[in-house]
Protein backbone atom coordinates (compact mmCIF):
# COMPACT_ATOMS: atom_id res chain seq x y z
CA UNK A 1 0.00 0.00 0.00
CA UNK A 2 1.10 3.60 -0.53
CA UNK A 3 0.25 6.83 1.19
CA UNK A 4 -0.29 9.93 -0.90
CA UNK A 5 -0.09 13.38 0.69
CA UNK A 6 -1.62 16.65 -0.49
CA UNK A 7 -0.72 20.16 0.62
CA UNK A 8 -1.93 23.74 0.24
CA UNK A 9 -4.40 24.23 -2.63
CA UNK A 10 -4.14 20.58 -3.66
CA UNK A 11 -5.39 19.62 -0.21
CA UNK A 12 -8.32 22.01 -0.62
CA UNK A 13 -9.23 20.58 -4.03
CA UNK A 14 -8.72 16.94 -3.01
CA UNK A 15 -10.70 17.58 0.17
CA UNK A 16 -8.25 15.37 2.03
CA UNK A 17 -4.79 15.51 3.60
CA UNK A 18 -3.87 12.04 2.46
CA UNK A 19 -5.20 8.94 0.78
CA UNK A 20 -4.11 5.32 0.62
CA UNK A 21 -3.65 3.76 -2.81
CA UNK A 22 -1.83 0.77 -4.22
CA UNK A 23 0.53 2.34 -6.74
CA UNK A 24 3.80 0.41 -6.46
CA UNK A 25 5.44 -0.31 -9.80
CA UNK A 26 4.08 2.88 -11.32
CA UNK A 27 6.22 5.87 -12.22
CA UNK A 28 5.63 9.21 -10.55
CA UNK A 29 4.40 10.54 -13.91
CA UNK A 30 1.81 7.76 -14.13
CA UNK A 31 0.63 8.47 -10.60
CA UNK A 32 0.34 12.17 -11.41
CA UNK A 33 -1.83 11.35 -14.40
CA UNK A 34 -4.07 9.10 -12.33
CA UNK A 35 -4.39 11.64 -9.52
CA UNK A 36 -5.27 14.44 -11.95
CA UNK A 37 -8.12 12.38 -13.35
CA UNK A 38 -9.29 11.17 -9.96
CA UNK A 39 -9.41 14.58 -8.27
CA UNK A 40 -9.91 16.87 -11.23
CA UNK A 41 -6.66 18.83 -10.69
CA UNK A 42 -6.31 21.08 -13.68
CA UNK A 43 -2.56 21.05 -13.95
CA UNK A 44 0.32 19.49 -12.08
CA UNK A 45 3.19 20.95 -14.14
CA UNK A 46 4.27 23.21 -11.34
CA UNK A 47 3.83 20.58 -8.67
CA UNK A 48 6.86 18.76 -7.36
CA UNK A 49 6.75 15.30 -5.89
CA UNK A 50 8.61 13.70 -3.03
CA UNK A 51 8.98 10.02 -2.21
CA UNK A 52 9.68 9.38 1.46
CA UNK A 53 10.45 13.06 2.09
CA UNK A 54 12.97 13.42 -0.72
CA UNK A 55 12.36 15.20 -4.03
CA UNK A 56 11.97 12.79 -6.89
CA UNK A 57 11.64 12.96 -10.66
CA UNK A 58 8.76 11.96 -12.90
CA UNK A 59 10.33 8.70 -14.09
CA UNK A 60 11.14 7.31 -10.65
CA UNK A 61 9.30 4.08 -9.87
CA UNK A 62 7.21 3.85 -6.73
CA UNK A 63 7.96 0.99 -4.34
CA UNK A 64 5.61 -0.81 -1.96
CA UNK A 65 5.26 1.23 1.24
CA UNK A 66 6.52 4.50 -0.24
CA UNK A 67 4.86 7.72 0.83
CA UNK A 68 4.37 10.07 -2.07
CA UNK A 69 3.80 13.80 -1.52
CA UNK A 70 2.49 16.30 -4.05
CA UNK A 71 4.24 19.57 -3.35
CA UNK A 72 2.95 22.78 -4.94
CA UNK A 73 5.47 25.61 -5.42
CA UNK A 74 6.56 26.48 -1.90
CA UNK A 75 5.97 29.88 -0.32
CA UNK A 76 7.61 29.74 3.09
CA UNK A 77 10.06 32.28 4.47
Amino acid sequence: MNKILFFAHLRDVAGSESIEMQVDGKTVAELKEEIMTKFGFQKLDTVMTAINEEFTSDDDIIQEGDTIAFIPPVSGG
Partner: protein
Amino acid sequence: MNLYEISKEPINTQSVIDKVVQREAGAITTFIGTVRELTHGKKTLYLVYEAYESMAVKKLAQIGAEIEERWQGSKVAITHRVGKLDITDIAVVIAVSTPHRADSYEANRYAIERIKEIVPIWKKEHWEDGQEWIGNQLETVSYPSGQPEEGDLDE
Protein backbone atom coordinates in the same frame (compact mmCIF):
# COMPACT_ATOMS: atom_id res chain seq x y z
CA MET B 1 18.80 21.05 21.02
CA ASN B 2 17.22 21.01 17.58
CA LEU B 3 18.87 23.39 15.16
CA TYR B 4 16.06 23.06 12.63
CA GLU B 5 12.48 23.33 13.73
CA ILE B 6 8.92 23.80 12.57
CA SER B 7 7.02 25.49 15.38
CA LYS B 8 3.33 25.82 16.11
CA GLU B 9 4.12 28.36 18.83
CA PRO B 10 5.51 31.91 18.45
CA ILE B 11 9.23 31.85 17.75
CA ASN B 12 11.59 33.15 20.43
CA THR B 13 14.30 34.87 18.40
CA GLN B 14 16.84 34.85 21.22
CA SER B 15 16.59 31.09 21.63
CA VAL B 16 17.42 30.61 17.94
CA ILE B 17 20.39 32.97 18.26
CA ASP B 18 21.63 31.13 21.34
CA LYS B 19 21.97 27.94 19.31
CA VAL B 20 24.71 29.37 17.07
CA VAL B 21 26.93 31.09 19.66
CA GLN B 22 30.48 29.80 19.37
CA ARG B 23 33.85 31.01 20.67
CA GLU B 24 35.28 31.04 17.16
CA ALA B 25 32.55 33.34 15.84
CA GLY B 26 32.90 37.09 15.59
CA ALA B 27 29.59 37.63 13.83
CA ILE B 28 26.06 36.40 14.11
CA THR B 29 23.44 37.51 11.62
CA THR B 30 19.77 36.84 12.00
CA PHE B 31 17.00 37.12 9.48
CA ILE B 32 13.53 37.54 10.93
CA GLY B 33 10.75 37.22 8.40
CA THR B 34 7.65 39.05 9.61
CA VAL B 35 4.11 39.31 8.28
CA ARG B 36 3.85 42.55 6.33
CA GLU B 37 0.56 44.40 6.15
CA LEU B 38 0.79 45.48 2.50
CA THR B 39 1.85 43.42 -0.51
CA HIS B 40 1.56 45.14 -3.88
CA GLY B 41 -0.75 47.64 -2.19
CA LYS B 42 -3.14 44.95 -1.01
CA LYS B 43 -3.92 44.74 2.71
CA THR B 44 -3.26 41.40 4.38
CA LEU B 45 -5.43 40.54 7.39
CA TYR B 46 -3.47 37.48 8.44
CA LEU B 47 -1.57 34.50 7.03
CA VAL B 48 -1.76 30.79 7.55
CA TYR B 49 1.39 28.72 7.09
CA GLU B 50 1.21 24.99 6.47
CA ALA B 51 4.18 22.62 6.29
CA TYR B 52 5.00 19.08 5.34
CA GLU B 53 6.66 19.07 8.69
CA SER B 54 8.93 16.03 8.67
CA MET B 55 10.28 16.83 5.21
CA ALA B 56 10.56 20.56 5.97
CA VAL B 57 12.83 19.83 8.96
CA LYS B 58 15.00 17.63 6.74
CA LYS B 59 15.24 20.31 4.07
CA LEU B 60 16.14 23.00 6.63
CA ALA B 61 18.89 20.69 7.87
CA GLN B 62 20.06 20.22 4.28
CA ILE B 63 20.33 23.99 3.87
CA GLY B 64 22.33 24.19 7.09
CA ALA B 65 24.67 21.47 5.84
CA GLU B 66 25.11 23.27 2.51
CA ILE B 67 26.05 26.46 4.38
CA GLU B 68 28.45 24.78 6.77
CA GLU B 69 30.20 23.20 3.81
CA ARG B 70 30.40 26.42 1.80
CA TRP B 71 31.25 28.89 4.60
CA GLN B 72 33.91 27.43 6.82
CA GLY B 73 33.37 27.67 10.54
CA SER B 74 29.72 28.64 10.18
CA LYS B 75 26.92 27.41 12.39
CA VAL B 76 23.24 27.61 11.46
CA ALA B 77 19.86 27.40 13.19
CA ILE B 78 16.47 27.91 11.58
CA THR B 79 12.95 27.86 12.99
CA HIS B 80 9.87 28.30 10.80
CA ARG B 81 6.43 28.94 12.22
CA VAL B 82 3.20 27.27 11.08
CA GLY B 83 -0.42 28.15 11.80
CA LYS B 84 -2.18 31.52 11.83
CA LEU B 85 0.02 34.60 11.93
CA ASP B 86 -1.02 38.22 12.38
CA ILE B 87 0.69 41.32 11.04
CA THR B 88 4.25 41.71 12.48
CA ASP B 89 4.25 38.10 13.73
CA ILE B 90 7.43 36.19 13.01
CA ALA B 91 7.26 33.54 10.27
CA VAL B 92 10.89 32.50 10.24
CA VAL B 93 14.14 33.12 12.13
CA ILE B 94 17.50 32.23 10.59
CA ALA B 95 20.64 32.61 12.71
CA VAL B 96 24.12 32.14 11.28
CA SER B 97 27.41 32.59 13.08
CA THR B 98 30.76 32.77 11.31
CA PRO B 99 34.29 33.85 12.20
CA HIS B 100 34.07 36.90 9.91
CA ARG B 101 31.15 39.19 9.17
CA ALA B 102 30.99 39.11 5.37
CA ASP B 103 30.37 35.36 5.42
CA SER B 104 27.68 35.76 7.99
CA TYR B 105 25.59 38.05 5.79
CA GLU B 106 26.11 35.95 2.68
CA ALA B 107 25.37 32.64 4.33
CA ASN B 108 22.23 34.00 5.95
CA ARG B 109 20.97 35.38 2.66
CA TYR B 110 21.65 32.02 1.05
CA ALA B 111 19.51 30.31 3.69
CA ILE B 112 16.39 32.41 3.06
CA GLU B 113 16.69 32.02 -0.72
CA ARG B 114 17.03 28.25 -0.35
CA ILE B 115 14.04 28.10 1.99
CA LYS B 116 11.98 29.72 -0.73
CA GLU B 117 13.18 27.05 -3.17
CA ILE B 118 13.16 23.69 -1.45
CA VAL B 119 11.39 23.71 1.91
CA PRO B 120 7.82 22.38 1.75
CA ILE B 121 6.02 25.22 3.50
CA TRP B 122 3.11 27.18 2.06
CA LYS B 123 1.39 30.36 3.01
CA LYS B 124 -2.22 31.31 2.53
CA GLU B 125 -2.92 35.03 2.40
CA HIS B 126 -6.18 36.24 3.86
CA TRP B 127 -7.48 39.60 2.61
CA GLU B 128 -10.75 41.39 3.24
CA ASP B 129 -12.12 40.10 -0.06
CA GLY B 130 -10.74 36.59 -0.16
CA GLN B 131 -7.91 34.19 0.43
CA GLU B 132 -5.37 32.33 -1.63
CA TRP B 133 -2.49 29.89 -1.33
CA ILE B 134 0.58 31.75 -2.51
CA GLY B 135 2.82 30.11 -5.06
CA ASN B 136 0.15 28.16 -6.86
CA GLN B 137 -2.32 30.12 -8.94
CA LEU B 138 0.12 32.47 -10.58
CA GLU B 139 2.03 29.50 -11.93
CA THR B 140 4.99 31.63 -12.80
CA VAL B 141 7.25 28.89 -11.51
CA SER B 142 7.42 25.55 -13.27
CA TYR B 143 9.63 22.58 -12.56
CA PRO B 144 9.91 20.56 -15.77
CA SER B 145 12.37 18.17 -14.13
CA GLY B 146 9.99 17.52 -11.27
CA GLN B 147 12.25 19.23 -8.73
CA PRO B 148 13.78 22.64 -8.17
CA GLU B 149 17.09 23.32 -9.84
CA GLU B 150 20.06 25.51 -8.99
CA GLY B 151 18.97 29.05 -9.67
CA ASP B 152 15.22 28.59 -9.23
CA LEU B 153 14.91 31.61 -7.01
CA ASP B 154 11.65 33.11 -5.88
CA GLU B 155 12.75 36.75 -5.75
